[in-house]
């Protein structure tokens, strides 16, 4: 059987070597593939912005197939933000285009000898080439993509960094073009992988459409097709996921706000009384008023359509996919309860290449330290502009929540492993708190949320077990496809997934074998972090969550250390 292609790009020698995907990597993809390559090729104690680190970009296990939402793209490396292993994934058009070239993985190695910026261009024949682009450095993502489309046509996909990545900010992203809007509004956001790309002086990866799209080498096409048909039916008809189609993730603040899970004022643990202003009804009203749209698809072939296009009140395009995490962190957590302002922050972050979660967490720490007032949207935008300009303060803020909080003397710094927490107050959803504490990724929004678990989120009972399960589920999903696609299927008909895998790759599959992909991934990630110097003490939430009662629930984070230590012992 033909093996998918891997390109190894050495930015020092400027050489590009094609390899075949190793046989033992065949049943890996996305996050699990990254964890394997990192374990085998990257010294865990290396400098994340040094020659020893690698930037790995790869597609998922289901990429290249006709499964909806299969073309999630994973980016990995050692994180300059956490100092541990990192995988961040992103929707958009790049995953699809790479798969059509039968490219499974790009590995960028070493540090460049010169200060010249390059882009990697993959042409219609699937051949990669490094192109010097001195004129494009210093551009931010929106202008950059405009230029690249002028040069290479508008059918390309682009993976790029803004100036935040160029300046090697530890909260910087890689952006990818969104399928619905054509703008670089999708982000592989967490962990500062944009800085790793910046350290290698790669400004962008331009992918032209394959002249002859590669077809997936199905082992049993008939079996696959039968399972796929069921899968599509289940995904489309999943009533529990209907809210994603109709509203998207901006539906979530109403729920999390009512349970004081939505972070408010730098994770104070209180209720946000103004949650209605940033809730689903307000969101839909804003879309209507500005001529925006929900129900958009970020990648081709998706049937979930959770994305959106958010316009200014005057009807001008502002940003695409204003998402829950951005509303939670840049909005509620800063007590900024105006969607137009939050959408402007989102646009600035996407353009400049900043993680909106980390940025929102950092801005709230600035507010707590008295740098700017709570709820002051214009002042918050001013601080993002400072990051963009690279002022002294801006550079500090660009290093993330932990660094900024320490520099400003903030009393409460809601970060784990140096990374700001995603939009869930861990005292009031303790299972997610366990995930935040123990995930090798740090406090991520895709590492094992427990909001849907049918348990009392305020009780410590059973949270470690639920977190462990969700961490495995999430690592599996991030190896296979979009998380929402995955949960749409497995919440209704998990038995479909083994059928799919047998049709694609052959062999005998059951659901536990599928979950083992995620389980082994998390085990490798934890081992990497241990080798990088992480200890049990890194698997803890900041102390204030353990001692200060949430004013909305009276809860403290009371999961015992002993339980946290055992969460990922499988």
């Amino acid at each position, binding site marked *: 059987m033909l093996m998918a292609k891997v390109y190894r790009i050495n930015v020092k020698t400027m050489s590009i070597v094609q390899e075949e995907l190793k046989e033992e990597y065949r049943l890996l993809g996305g996050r699990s593939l990254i964890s394997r390559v990192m374990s085998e090729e990257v010294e865990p104690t290396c400098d994340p912005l040094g020659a020893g680190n690698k930037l790995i970009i790869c597609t998922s296990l289901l990429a290249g197939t006709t499964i909806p939402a299969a073309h999630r793209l994973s980016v990995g490396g050692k994180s300059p933000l956490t100092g541990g292993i990192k995988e961040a994934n992103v929707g958009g058009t790049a995953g699809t285009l790479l798969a059509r070239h039968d490219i499974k993985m790009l590995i960028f190695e070493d540090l460049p000898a010169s200060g010249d910026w390059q882009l990697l261009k993959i042409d219609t024949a699937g051949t990669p080439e490094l192109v010097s682009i001195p004129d494009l450095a210093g551009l931010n993502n929106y202008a950059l993509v405009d230029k690249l489309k002028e040069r290479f046509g508008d059918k390309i996909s682009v993976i790029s960094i803004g100036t935040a990545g160029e300046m090697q900010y530890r909260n910087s992203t890689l952006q990818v073009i969104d399928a619905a809007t054509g703008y670089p509004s999708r982000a592989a956001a967490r962990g500062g992988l944009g800085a790793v790309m910046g350290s290698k002086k790669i400004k962008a990866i331009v992918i032209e459409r394959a002249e002859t799209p590669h077809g997936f080498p199905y082992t049993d096409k008939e079996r696959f097709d039968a399972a796929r048909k069921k899968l599509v039916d289940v995904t489309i008809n999943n009533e529990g996921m209907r809210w994603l189609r109709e509203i998207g993730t901006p539906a979530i603040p109403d729920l999390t706000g*009512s*349970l*004081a899970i939505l972070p408010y004022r730098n994770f104070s643990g*209180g*209720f946000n*009384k103004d*949650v209605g202003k940033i809730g689903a009804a307000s969101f839909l009203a804003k879309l209507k008023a500005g001529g925006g749209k929900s129900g958009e698809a970020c990648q081709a072939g998706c049937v979930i359509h959770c994305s959106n296009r958010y316009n200014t009140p005057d009807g001008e395009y502002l940003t695409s996919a204003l998402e829950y995490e951005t509303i939670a962190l840049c909005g509620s957590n800063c007590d900024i309860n105006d969607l137009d302002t939050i959408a402007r922050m989102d646009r600035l972050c996407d353009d400049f290449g900043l993680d909106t979660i980390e940025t929102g967490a950092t801005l709230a720490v600035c507010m707590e330290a008295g740098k700017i007032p709570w709820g002051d949207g214009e002042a918050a935008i001013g601080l993002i502009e400072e990051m963009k300009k690279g002022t002294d303060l801006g550079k500090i803020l660009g290093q993330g929540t932990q660094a900024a909080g320490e520099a400003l003397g903030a009393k409460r710094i809601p970060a784990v492993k140096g990374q700001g927490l995603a939009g869930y107050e861990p005292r009031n959803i303790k299972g997610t708190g366990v995930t935040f504490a123990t995930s090798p990724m740090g406090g991520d929004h895709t590492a094992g949320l427990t909001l849907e678990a049918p348990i009392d989120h*305020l009780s410590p009972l059973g949270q470690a077990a639920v977190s462990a399960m969700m961490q495995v589920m999430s690592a599996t999903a991030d190896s296979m496809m979009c998380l929402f696609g995955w949960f749409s299927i497995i919440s209704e008909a998990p038995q479909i997934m083994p059928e799919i895998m047998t049709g694609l790759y052959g062999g005998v599959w059951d659901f536990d074998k599928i979950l083992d992909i995620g389980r082994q991934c998390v085990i490798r990630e934890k081992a990497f972090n241990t080798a990088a110097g992480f200890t049990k003490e890194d698997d803890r939430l900041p102390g204030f969550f353990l001692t200060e*009662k*949430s*004013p*909305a*629930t*009276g*809860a*403290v984070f009371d999961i015992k250390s002993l339980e946290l230590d055992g969460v990922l012992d499988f």
Partner: protein
Amino acid sequence: MITFFNRSVPVLFGPGAALRTGLKVKQLGAQKVFCVYDRGIKDAGIAGKIVDNLEAAGLQVVSYDGVKEDPPDAVINEAAEIAAREKVDAVVGVGGGSTMDTAKGINVLLTNPAPINQYYAGSGKAHQPGKILVLIPTTAGTGSEATNISVVSDTQSQSKKGVLGPAALAVLAIVDPELLLGLPPKITAATGMDAFAHAVEALTSEGMNPMSDVLAEKAVALITHNLPISVKDGSNLEARTNMMFASLIAGIAFNDTMPHWGHAIAHALGVKFHIPHGIGCAVALPVAVEYVADAVPEKIRQAGVAMGLSLPEGMLPAELGSTVAQAIHNLNRRVGIPSLKEYNVDEAALEQLAGNVLADDCAMFGPKRASAKQAQSMLKKTCAY
């Protein structure tokens, strides 16, 4: 024997639990809340915090701070009228027994025609379930958060009446020991002895059952140990927590069994001499224990052992009674319960109350009956303390 374990109330218990009030009340489906408390709780800053907490959860709140001690029927009728006018769909009572009794009465009248007086136990008129009633005790004493009775001071008969039934039972009790931290020693002592009396009387009641025995015995042990600590050091959260828990389980226990002679006497003392309920209970309990010792000697022994007494086998019932009564006297002294003399109560006046004691609702639950003369004798002895 077939026993009916009465339905009790779901409880959210623990330091900081009151901070979850808004969330819970909202989850129960409320939108507009009638929040009931007295001036003391308002001045202590507790009421304000609860109101803020309710509002932060997105609830509308109508505050009522007019609760009176030993709540008179008229106050309940008046407060319920306001609540009905405001079209509230929930009642949250924050305070001691009087506040919780008032909140219960209001809840009864939100779904049943006024006045409250027509629903007294024994009047034959049952009431329909109420709206959403949530009770938050601020003393460790009454246990009212766990019971289905509202005790009302009836103006006409000058006696305490009980309104029993579904609308007098909370749908949720939020029991937060941190609310006790500012409670002064005297009130701590009096309310704590009320809880102690609930426990001992539940243990020795005619209505005792295996479940209430377990709860009451534990409450006796906890209060014996933790009440003196709480009185001496009001900021001791562990002792406060144990007292709050003891008060709660004693409340659950006596909701099934009902208290008896001690409470009957305390009610009479309260109505005639305005002796605070807890102090009345504290001074009446040893007398009641001595009186019933021959009827339930093993239960008296159980109470004594729970208090930490060493009671040799073969003690006669009367000896058991006097020994345990003496231990209760000693506990009263340790926590500073004043004698009735400080309230200018004389023996002659006391003896006049025998009729009130015998007519009290609690009298029927004694493990043995009392004649007028025996009631007089008990009343006289309360003055001996």
